[in-house]
């Protein structure tokens, strides 16, 4: 399954890109598993996700918890806690 990953704020800066398409391995079923898989992709990912519990995620533009099932997600985003307003 192909999924678009999007990164924002310092997650984006550390990874060095704003978005990318990935082929999701069949054994990755939750957001938390995806984070672990990404961390193994290279030092920039390891750096971005070093404190994985700080990073927030959204599936198809809705906030989700790490244990959320990826299901048929088209777009998964990772970002720091929000600071608008």
């Amino acid at each position: 399954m192909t999924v678009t990953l999007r990164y924002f704020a310092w997650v984006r800066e550390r990874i060095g890109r704003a978005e990318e398409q990935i082929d999701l391995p069949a054994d990755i079923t939750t957001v938390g598993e995806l984070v672990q898989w990404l961390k193994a992709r290279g030092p920039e990912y390891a750096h971005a996700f070093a404190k994985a519990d700080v990073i927030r995620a959204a599936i198809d533009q809705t906030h989700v918890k790490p244990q959320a099932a990826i299901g048929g997600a088209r777009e998964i985003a990772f970002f720091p806690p929000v600071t608008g307003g």
Partner: protein
Amino acid sequence: MSVSVQAAAFNIALEVRSLTAGRTDIGAVVTFTGIVRGEAKGHPITSMELEHYPGMTERELARVEALARGRWPLQGVRIIHRIGVLRPGEDIVLVVTLSSHRQAAFEAAEFLMDYLKTSAPFWKKETGADGVGMWVDAREADNKARERWESA
């Protein structure tokens, strides 16, 4: 559409007028404006950049507005959040609430700000006098402010 994400500045009086024009059922209007401060943790800042998640931002703001409308009898709501580069003294965000009575207008405006601050996907980066940009950390106080509505 009562939610806008825009680079342009806004005018409070015009926004209020467009919500109240021709109506005689509104008794109370509360506005909240957030402004860029010239200092962060005791250090001067020269500018602030606001990044956001286009699409999700509008969805979250609309969701938060619907939550407020479900909780208070509101006759109007307006949310404007600016993006891009802003300087100290410039407006960041505007929330306007209209109701028959002031308590509802006040509470809904506070609620909207508390939810906006903790769920709308915006991120602030402050640039200091040395030209170095620093991402703003989320404030625990904002999470606490939001939690009071969840237990209420």
